[in-house]
């Protein structure tokens, strides 16, 4: 059953693309999540409400629909704006659209995770940092951020697992990731089940490896925590 007719390298190529999309969108999600969490906790009413709108909107609409809105619709809107300013035709590649959308979606989930993490940092530690004369930026970088990482790591891990599986959706907008390649190979060999099963296994490898890495990170960042 597992005769892959020489298509395995193609699937592996797709896997590399899947991992690229996942890591890049994770980066975007972390940046957006940090910005979102800080604005949710900021004193400014505008920052708070815009972050709230962002997280509610994103979490209310399916990722697939958001992706098509950005990929198909975003292109048209962008070119409408471009026409107005006299730009050349802008072509959003599916790679950029997919990565941006996934990053954008999981930025909303990361916002909630990071917000929880920041709230879990005990006040005394922040007060102590202020007492040492650190300015707000230093307090954030040296004290709040490392502690936040510890508290938000479990949620972060969950988000990453969901994110890495969401990358399968980029095949719908025509990116040649491993699901797409499996479809091609399965169509050519008339063995779609075999190829999709291989892809499923490769996804299990990705989640398995990340589980391992996350456990390591969890141990590393909880060194100072006493356990019963």
């Amino acid at each position: 059953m597992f005769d892959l007719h020489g298509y395995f390298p193609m699937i592996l190529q797709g896997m590399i693309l899947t991992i690229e999309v996942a890591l890049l969108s994770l980066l975007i999600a972390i940046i957006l999540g940090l910005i979102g969490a800080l604005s949710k906790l900021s004193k400014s009413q505008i920052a708070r409400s815009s972050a709230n709108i962002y997280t509610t909107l994103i979490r209310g609409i399916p990722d697939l629909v958001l992706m098509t809105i950005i990929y198909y619709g975003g292109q048209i809107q962008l070119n409408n704006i471009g026409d107005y300013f006299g730009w050349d035709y802008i072509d959003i590649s599916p790679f950029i659209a997919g990565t941006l959308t996934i990053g954008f979606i999981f930025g909303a989930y990361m916002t909630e995770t990071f917000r929880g993490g920041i709230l879990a940092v005990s006040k005394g530690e922040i007060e102590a940092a202020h007492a040492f004369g650190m300015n707000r930026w230093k307090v954030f970088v040296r004290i709040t951020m490392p502690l936040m990482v510890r508290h938000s790591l479990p949620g972060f891990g969950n988000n990453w697992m969901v994110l890495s599986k969401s990358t399968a959706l980029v095949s719908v907008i025509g990116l040649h990731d491993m699901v797409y390649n499996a479809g091609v190979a399965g169509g050519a060999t008339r063995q779609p089940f075999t190829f999709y099963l291989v892809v499923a296994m490769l996804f299990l490898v990705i989640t398995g490896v990340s589980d391992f890495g996350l456990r390591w990170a969890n141990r590393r960042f909880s060194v100072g925590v006493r356990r019963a």
Partner: protein
Amino acid sequence: MDYEVIFTNIHLYIEGLWVTIQLVFLSLVCGFVLALPIALLAICRSPWIQIFPKTYIYFFRGTPLLVQMFLIYHGMGQFEFVRESVIWIVFKEAYWCALIAFALNTAGYTAEILRGTIEQTPFGDFEAARACGMSKSTMYRRIILPGTFRRALPAYGNETIFMLHGSALAGVVTIVDLFGAAKVVNSRHFVPFESFITAGFFYFCLTFIIVSLFKKLEFRWYAHLRPRKV
């Protein structure tokens, strides 16, 4: 922006909405029925029994729903014996394939939620039930499972919303659900932004309806935790 096209095609969206609601509801019900025995097997002490539910949960939680759906929709046709047997009536229809994939998927997630909450049951509950002379099945039916469902409610609400969002994948395999309707409108009139944003709007409303339903349920089921009115 051209929303006139959307209004003339609104019936497509309404039909799609109905299909989406059907798919989500049916897969949640089937998934829950499947999840309960899986969760009960997963809390068995014997490692030989545990291995089956654990593998099931691991597979369905570890792989994308899209791949699971393709495995069933595209994959089942690979096998001669499936194509020649009666069950091909089921597997050749995109609707049933999507429904099966969704149900199996949500069963995996729900089983994990239930397993976690059954394990969280305070030991006193078990002890008290046994002290009352209940048999194992009575104990689970009357004491453990009702408590479990109550504790699982918030997590299950999230799972319901995930299922709603996942159900958009049905549009990929030619089913005209909400997302499928948006695809049809887009391909007929080429209004990608308007058509998909309309679908997004419907999904958004559905999400909020589900959230408020679960809030209501939580209000009822957690009545004992409410501060008492004096």
